């Protein structure tokens, strides 16, 4: 066996002592989940965005839908849930990414918690805004 002996571990500097700041105060119970979420939502965004782009720009004469075309598009019973899902997922993905960038500025654990809460609120507000907008357009005679 070439691994360290208990005698070595017990000695000062003998191992397992990480710099204090490395050991987080609260260990994340499921580390890597945030990263996995970003990958999963990213994949969903890719699919939905491709549909969104093709439907809104590439198959339309002139590249952009006018008002009537927009209304016709979103009242489609397949498109409406897809566009709603797209809104939910893309804003999640974007805000989670922005949160990671903000965390790179080296915030305290408390500041990180505040940022997270603010972002949840922003995310919910985005969904409310989008859904309201869709509701107005779909229900307009």
């Amino acid at each position, binding site marked *: 066996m070439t691994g360290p002996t208990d005698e070595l571990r017990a000695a000062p500097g003998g191992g397992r002592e990480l710099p204090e700041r490395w050991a987080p105060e609260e260990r994340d119970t499921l580390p890597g989940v945030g*990263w996995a979420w970003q*990958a999963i939502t990213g994949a969903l965004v890719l699919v939905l965005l491709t549909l969104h782009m093709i439907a809104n720009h590439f198959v339309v004469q002139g*590249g952009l839908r006018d*008002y*009537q075309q927009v209304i016709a598009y979103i009242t489609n019973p397949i498109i409406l849930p897809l566009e709603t899902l797209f809104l939910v997922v893309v804003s999640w993905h974007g805000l989670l990414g922005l949160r990671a960038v903000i965390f*790179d500025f080296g915030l305290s654990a408390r500041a990180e918690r505040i940022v997270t809460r603010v972002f949840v609120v922003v995310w919910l507000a985005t969904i409310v805004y989008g859904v309201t907008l869709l509701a107005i357009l779909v229900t307009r005679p």
Partner: protein
Amino acid sequence: MTDRTAPTGRTALPDATAPSSARRRGVAGWVDVRGRRLGGWAFILNRVTGLGVLFYLYLHLLVLSQLAIGPGAWDSLLKNWFLNPVFLVLDVVLLAGLLIHGLNGIRVSLVGFGLVVSRQKALLGAFGTIGAIVLLIGTLMFISHGG
């Protein structure tokens, strides 16, 4: 002469481990591209395009509120602004951003889940090529729409 003297048997040297100056670059670390290789560029571009596209997303949502005002507001916006050649250029920039972020995202996800790790460089090259081709086609389509 000497600013630190010690009686016999005592040392008076400074604590060498006290960091005098942290050389952690901080956020500058991912903006500073000097000496970076392709993967470093991908990392930086991923962040820059991510921020840019997020900014666009909210701008887009804001603009869509014109739809709620009515047909007149939206169609005049369309005619006066979005079909303008300047906006077509911005569309190309947006498409480039989406392609960089999306393709790099696929690469990071695949490699990050432990797949294609040994061929990650080839993957980077392949995605770069795919992105360039799609951007070219997209640009041509924008131009044809504008014309």
